């Protein structure tokens, strides 16, 4: 396996993009990545596209060749491959693109992620994304994705004394960071009180504990590290890309306060990258539900089990400690177009490692980690990227 570098990045505005089509946003992000990486589309080997539910949202399946076509590349007859893994679809597409370049099967690939979620009603969209949990043994009894995460939160509070305000601290941080991110879905700041008093979705989680349904697309251009300098002055190496899966239903997990899939993917990724959590300066953590961010920090080894609440209270990941999280605004405030999320996380890490993150810049960022979850943790993807000096 050879080393793989990120040569270019692209991303659209996230939000309710009523006036823009799926094709438009997919192409915009992809071309930005190609232009950023100074690669001719003639040299592309393949396109990977993370997308969760275009059929349900848009009544359009088979979207990978569709994006390829409207990008003007149909006559190149490239392979175009859609990847689905619930909320981790984009991260999984990146994993597939990484493997393809690492193996030598292709030299250059574009990995895109795109989702258009606001063409249907909120109710319909919720029904579609709930299906990333177990339809037959969870949803049929009245569960929703936020309800399942709320049960993780309740258990975590019971076991470890985590407080309601500890959960709320993460959305507050995310909104603050997103206020500095022009592409973010939400640009407004929120207070701890606003999060705690937001309308209850599933107790103890309120509306402001839950990421929005967004439209948006993101893309990266990957190529072999050995020739990366021909295409960019600031290549970023993919030091690790790891996936781990677990039981579909939350109630079948070994421990309801731990995502074993995240813990295992994290352990494998740190091992592959030969890094440890304290080596990471910037991390994009899946906080589609605030409790998810806290649990992830524990499962990835950034804090000991049960101490994420304390870390939130201390602001340990909000400017004080060695690792800063969700400088993009996270899923909560940058937005959550399901298929695009995992790619957008890595786009933000590349900005940080290049020193291009403007007023969100973490000084001296060298190593970044992205973490993305499907459902309630049946899939986790962990990616570690590293600045090449």
């Amino acid at each position, binding site marked *: 396996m050879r080393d793989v570098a990120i040569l270019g990045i692209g991303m659209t505005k996230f939000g309710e993009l009523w006036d823009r089509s799926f094709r438009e946003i997919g192409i915009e992000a992809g071309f930005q990545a190609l232009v950023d990486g100074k690669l001719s589309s003639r040299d592309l080997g393949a396109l990977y596209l993370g997308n969760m539910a275009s059929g349900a949202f848009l009544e359009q399946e088979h979207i990978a060749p569709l994006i390829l076509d409207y990008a003007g590349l149909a006559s190149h007859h490239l392979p175009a491959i859609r990847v689905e893994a619930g909320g981790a679809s984009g991260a999984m597409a990146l994993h597939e693109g990484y493997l393809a370049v690492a193996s030598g099967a292709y030299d250059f690939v574009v990995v895109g992620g795109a989702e258009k979620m606001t063409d249907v009603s909120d*109710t319909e969209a*919720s*029904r579609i994304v*709930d299906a990333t949990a177990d*339809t*037959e*043994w*969870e*949803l*049929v*009894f*009245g*569960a*929703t994705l*936020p*309800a*399942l995460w*709320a*049960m*993780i*939160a*309740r*258990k975590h509070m*019971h076991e470890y004394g985590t407080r309601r305000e500890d959960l709320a601290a993460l959305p507050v941080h995310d909104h603050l960071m997103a206020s500095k991110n022009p592409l973010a879905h939400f640009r407004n700041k929120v207070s701890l009180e606003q999060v705690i008093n937001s*309308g*209850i*979705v*599933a*107790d*103890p*989680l309120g509306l402001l504990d839950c990421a929005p349904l967004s439209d948006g697309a993101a893309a990266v251009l990957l190529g072999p590290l050995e020739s990366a300098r021909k295409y960019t002055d600031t290549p970023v190496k993919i030091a690790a890309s790891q996936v781990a899966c677990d039981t579909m*239903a*939350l*109630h*079948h997990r070994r421990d*309801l306060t731990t995502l074993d899939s995240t813990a295992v993917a994290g352990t494998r990724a740190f091992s592959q990258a030969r890094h440890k959590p304290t080596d990471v300066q910037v991390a994009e953590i899946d906080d589609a539900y605030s409790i998810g961010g806290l649990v992830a920090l524990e499962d990835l080894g950034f804090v000991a089990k049960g101490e994420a609440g304390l870390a939130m209270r201390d602001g340990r990941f909000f400017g004080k400690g060695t690792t800063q999280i969700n400088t993009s605004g996270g899923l909560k405030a940058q937005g959550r177009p399901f298929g695009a999320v995992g790619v957008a996380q890595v786009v933000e890490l590349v900005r940080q490692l290049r020193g291009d993150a403007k007023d969100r810049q973490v000084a001296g960022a060298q190593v970044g980690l992205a973490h993305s979850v499907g459902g309630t943790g049946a899939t986790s993807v962990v990616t570690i990227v590293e600045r090449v000096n």
Partner: protein
Amino acid sequence: MAIARFWRETPRRYNLGGSRCTVCTTVYFPPRSVCPTCTTHRQSLGKMEPFQLSGDGEVVTFTVVHEAANGFEMLVPYALAIVQTVEGPLLTGQVVNLRPEDLQIGLKVRATFRKLREEGPAGVIHYGYKFAPKEEAAMAPRPGRGSEQAPAASHAPEPSRARA
């Protein structure tokens, strides 16, 4: 949800019929054809036998849902829990017959047979298990005991049978 897809799992939802691995004796719900516990999974192939859960268990964690799942809008706010059965398997279900604020981790519950939701213009009604505090549930029909109030689990998927 399409009717056939729901009805296929109906016997389990009515009767809490699970399975037990005859190699290592672990109990599963819903039933599995391969045992995840046995180190060599293949050795359990063909050696899983039906196993009836009693319906007794304990709340492991819970939430009160205010933004309903599809088809549950009429019930909000409703209590949802993960219950560990006395036989071992954990499952997700609603908790009824108590005020949501009285729900707590460790509460002893018993499965009770209920209407889950109505669906579509035809008003198709789905049935299955919910949980109730154990003393409350003692009077209610229990899954797995051939309750007269419950449509029999073995019926073919006919929409008309699912009407109120």
